[in-house]
């Protein structure tokens, strides 16, 4: 009896959470509705499903190119932030760095810097260096939030790796580089994955910098393409819904397939003591 009640309760919670995600499912359904039925409500369900909106998005909009830009900018931002961030986090955890406390404080503060405050100087900087409308410009701008986040996360994960392991390796005659490569990195792998996923997600979702520093489809990212989605006389709700679904693909994959790493990163960022 008690067990059955537990199952019923579990089921009800899931139904409630499915209802919570309804705005997303509704957009998914809209992306598959025939054009003629879009502005008709009721009925709730369409008479048939169609991929027409996706065809239009792929053939007539810059969405595909924007996805390539977002993937490229996101991937390079992630690799850059992880490479530089890992070195810095390791140094902060294991070496004497002059002004360490002050630098760490600045980096933590850096995670809270509002983009709206740095966007105007960065805009002038991009203009002066002729980095407007380039991947490199976006990657550098994204580094402003990615790098502090990565250093903060990795320093936390590193503090969980016991120093004794490195000492043991040193006693066994392994050099620092070898110890780092064969002892630290494998232990850090889950943490690195979490930091990488969060960085990629934030880069994929970033809008303010991408909207300001891009001008053409050479560098426009997915959120910008979606925000500027063209409509001639009427708003093309079905096409926008299809484009929204494409923009949601990486977050969906992260949430479903890589949830463990995403959660770990999200919680570690907030719960680190």
């Amino acid at each position, binding site marked *: 009896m008690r067990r059955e009640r537990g199952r019923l309760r579990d089921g009800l919670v899931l139904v409630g*959470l499915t209802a919570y995600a309804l705005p997303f499912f509704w957009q998914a359904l809209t992306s598959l509705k025939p054009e003629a039925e879009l*502005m008709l409500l009721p009925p709730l369900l369409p008479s048939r499903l169609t991929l027409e909106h996706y065809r239009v998005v792929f053939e007539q909009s810059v969405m595909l190119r924007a996805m390539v830009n977002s993937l490229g900018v996101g991937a390079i931002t992630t690799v850059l932030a992880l490479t*530089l961030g890992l070195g810095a986090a390791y140094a902060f955890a*294991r*070496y004497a760095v002059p002004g360490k406390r002050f630098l760490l404080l600045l980096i933590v503060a850096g995670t809270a810097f509002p983009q709206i405050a740095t966007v*105007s100087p960065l805009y002038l900087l991009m203009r002066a260096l002729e980095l407007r409308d380039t991947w490199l410009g976006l990657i550098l701008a994204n580094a402003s939030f990615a790098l502090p986040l990565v250093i903060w996360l990795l320093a936390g994960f590193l503090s969980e790796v016991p120093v004794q392991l490195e000492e043991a390796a040193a006693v066994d005659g392994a050099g620092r580089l070898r110890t780092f490569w064969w002892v630290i990195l494998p232990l850090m792998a889950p943490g690195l994955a979490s930091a990488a996923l969060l960085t990629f997600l934030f880069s994929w979702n970033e809008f303010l910098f991408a909207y300001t520093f891009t001008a053409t489809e050479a560098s426009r990212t997915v959120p910008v393409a979606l925000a500027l989605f063209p409509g001639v006389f009427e708003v093309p709700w079905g096409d926008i819904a299809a484009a929204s679904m494409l923009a949601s693909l990486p977050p969906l994959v992260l949430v479903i397939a890589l949830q463990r790493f995403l959660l770990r990163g999200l919680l570690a960022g907030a719960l680190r003591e």
Partner: protein
Amino acid sequence: MRALAPRGTGLVLVAPALVVLAAVTAFPALWVVWLSLQRRVPIFGIAEFEGLRNYVYLAADPRFWSAARVTLIFTVVSVGLELVLGLMVALALAGQRRGLRAGIALLLLAWALPAVVTAKLFEWLYNPAAGLVNYLLGGARLNWLGDPTLALPGLIFADVWRTMPFVALLCLARLRGIPAEVYEAAHVDGAGPVATLLRITLPLCRQILLIAVLFRTLDALRAFDLMFILTGGGPAGTTETFTVYAYRSLFQTLHLGLGSAIGVIVFALVMLVAWGYLRALGREGIAA
């Protein structure tokens, strides 16, 4: 161990990250203050120092104070609702035996979507003629994003949907860390569900709730994407936050100096809130 490390290695490892951070974070953070002291209109090549004139202008600017009011309401109401709802959802999920992963996925999805997508989702839900919201309200014809009294609640609702999962998952992590014995002991002592919630669960969640408030307040003050796309600050400025006002000044009316001044004010506000909370948390005995 540290003694074994050659001097200078640490600095070499930190240097690349610091150089990049100096260029894209520290330098812009200082430069924006300098920009805010200028009359600067890039397309006409105007750049002249004028001291605090932008700030003096803002102090007497009704649009600035309207943005202050909208930012305050948006932040307080959003964060407040997120805390209450997030805690409720966490409590519901804490006892979940089956389908926890699926439940978290459904919850986390809203948080992980780009804010621009969320804006598009809700723009469609709020459509006066064919939107699901009006349909669910029994065929109402409310113009959610076009009506000055409805636009801000509509915006806040979309923001709460997007960010409540963050609070819920933080609380859930805390709740699942509470040993079962604590609840068993309370049960043995004859505490009912309400007393258990008020006397045990909530006090144990106090710290995590404070941390959630800090993160969410900082994000709400900085929020831009959602309102920029969903309402663009309208109708009649009723959803124009500091960030939207700053952006419009910077890149639409092209007053780079004035826009930078609003940016500096957001910056100061964020740092003030962070500092205040960290002090409060420090008193609570957490080094955050």
